[in-house]
Structures are given as structure tokens and as C-alpha cells.
């Protein structure tokens, strides 16, 4: 079974998700995990689907890109299966005046501590820059990571918080 990674990026308009999903459904492609948002007004969708050949999906999505407003890419990927969780889940929030290198510096601290970012959003609005990341940290490391994040954030002149993303099982 082919597993395909598809991206669709371009000028937003109503109906892009429906058009993409319909083209895939016609091919018998099973849309599995997907995410879509608008990034600075641009439509941005990434999805994994299972089933058809790469060339068939490219051909099916070609009409969508014909007017030059959307770019669709398709590539075969190796199924990862279930990746084993690597640590304890936390949410890092950073906000402050925009400047170069905030994401690079803050995520480097996480990476150096063995942390794995599993979700990330960044937004620039006016001069305010915001980063929110879900990260898995090695068990017992959060206090030390929080300290390092605070020092790096101070150097950058931004604020940071690190809190557990604990789940209530009901």
C-alpha cells in the first residue's frame, strides 16, 4: 500500500479542502492524518493518504494548480508506524517583540535537552511574535529545561513559559 505525503499551498479561497478531498476520494485514496491552516493568509495543508500511485495523485491535483494560484506536491513516504513517545508532554509558550532567531534559539534549547517538538505554531502580528510548541521532554528534565529556556528568552528579550500538558483521564 502506497503512503503519500501531500502538500497544498497557495492563495486561499472557499472550497480548496473540498476540492482536494474530492479528487483524492475519486482515486480511492484514504485520507488519514491531515492538518490545514492559514499562514499569513495563505492556504496551507499537509496530509497523509494511503492508496493510489504518486503519478495518479499528481494528475488528479493538477487541475487545482492550473491557474497558478495553488501549488500541490506529492511524494511517497515510508510508513512510520506508531512512533514511541520519548518523554513527558509539555507546552512551551514564547511571546515578545519580534526579532531574528527566536524559534531557532528556543527550539535549539529543547533539542539539546533531548526534547522532541510534536506540534508547533508561530504567529507574527504587528510587532508581537508568538510561539506555541508541544514538546516531549526526557522524564525529570523539565526544571532544568525551564531554566535554560528562561535564560535564552532573557537574552532574546522575550518571555517564556513551560507547563505540563497533563491529561485528565476520565
Amino acid at each position, binding site marked *: 500500500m502506497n503512503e503519500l505525503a501531500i502538500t497544498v499551498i497557495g492563495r486561499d479561497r472557499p472550497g480548496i479542502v473540498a476540492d482536494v478531498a474530492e479528487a483524492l476520494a475519486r482515486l480511492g485514496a484514504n485520507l488519514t492524518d491531515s492538518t490545514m491552516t492559514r499562514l499569513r493568509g495563505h492556504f496551507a495543508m499537509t496530509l497523509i493518504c494511503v492508496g493510489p500511485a504518486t503519478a495518479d495523485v499528481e494528475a488528479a491535483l493538477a487541475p487545482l494548480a492550473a491557474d497558478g494560484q495553488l501549488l500541490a506536491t506529492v511524494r511517497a513516504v515510508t510508513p512510520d508506524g506508531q512512533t514511541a513517545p*520519548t518523554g513527558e508532554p509539555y507546552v512551551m509558550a514564547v511571546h515578545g517583540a519580534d526579532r531574528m532567531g527566536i524559534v531557532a534559539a528556543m527550539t535549539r534549547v529543547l533539542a539539546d535537552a533531548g526534547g522532541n517538538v510534536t506540534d508547533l505554531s508561530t504567529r507574527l502580528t504587528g510587532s508581537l511574535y508568538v510561539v506555541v510548541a508541544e514538546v516531549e521532554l526526557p522524564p525529570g528534565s523539565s526544571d532544568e529545561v525551564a531554566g535554560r529556556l528562561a535564560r535564552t528568552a532573557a537574552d532574546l528579550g522575550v518571555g517564556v513559559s513551560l507547563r505540563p500538558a497533563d491529561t485528565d483521564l476520565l
Partner: protein
Amino acid sequence: MTAEYVGLGDWTVETLSVPGEVRPVVSAPDPVLSRPGPEVDPTSDEVVRLAADLVATMQVSPGCVGLAAPQVGVSAQVFAVDVTGHPKAVTVHGTFVLCNAKVVEASRWKAGREGCMSVPDLTGDVKRAGRLVVEGVLPGTGRPVRLVTDGFEARALQHEIDHCAGLLFLDRVAGAHAIYQRKVYL
């Protein structure tokens, strides 16, 4: 139902006078989880047995603080709750089962991430009331109760009452990016 406060009184699981049996827990997408359960006769043998079984099944499930009838495959407005010893619990009513329960007052709404035994691989951010008044009926005796609670027990009650109405936490997530792959690192 009178408007005055009526707590659990001397009701305990022993009041049911039947031994509970552990039933298998069903997972989404089992359609029973999406079907609103009917009201029940809290004094019927069937409901008394179901109540005892819900408690027994809850007690053998690690970390389980509540279990509703649809989760054991029965479409009915019956659920068990026990948040005793949970670090986030404030008010605690111990182990109890309610039939035909309704939320009559809800306030102090707060977002929190929750998971469910019947949706084992996902969690989601859901807003729940931190202060709650619930009215229902006790199985066995059929006596009406009015429970006033807060914090974690309030969250658990809302989650279970939702199950009885055919709703999962997935129906209440805060937005498109508020569901997550559950991270188990036991």
C-alpha cells in the same frame, strides 16, 4: 425533586446488594457511544445490576475515575464516578452511581485536556464548568439527589453525563487544532 440540597446520604455501593461483574469496555467508533441513552427505572433489577457492574469495571480499570453505561455497550442514563485520591480533586463524594442525571447549574468554566477510556489514542482540550450542581436519582433506592461539587469531580460528572447523552469529548473540543495523539509513557 425538591430544590433543597439532598446529598448521597447513607447510599453506598453496598446499598445495591448485588455483586458487580466486570464488563468489557467499548471504544469509538462503536455506535452505542454516539447514541443518546434513554432514562431508566433506577429501581429495576437490570439497572441495579448495571450500576454494580459499572462500579466493578471502573475499579479494575487503572486510573479510571468514571464510567458511563454506553462505555460498557448499554445505551442508558447511568454512570459511576469516584475521584477519591485524585490529586486535582477538591470536593469528593466517594464512589457513587447516578441515574437520569442532569446538570442544573454550571459556572466557572475552565479549559483542560482530557482523555477517555473509550477513545484511547486521542486527547483534547475541552472547556468544563469548575462549579456544578447535578440532579439525578440513586440506583436501588430510587431516591432523588442534588450534588454540589467542583474542580475535578465536576469535570468527571460532565464527561459522564455527556456519555449518557451520546457525546464524546471529541464533540466538545475547543477547535481544529485542539486534539492530540495521546502520549503514553508508562
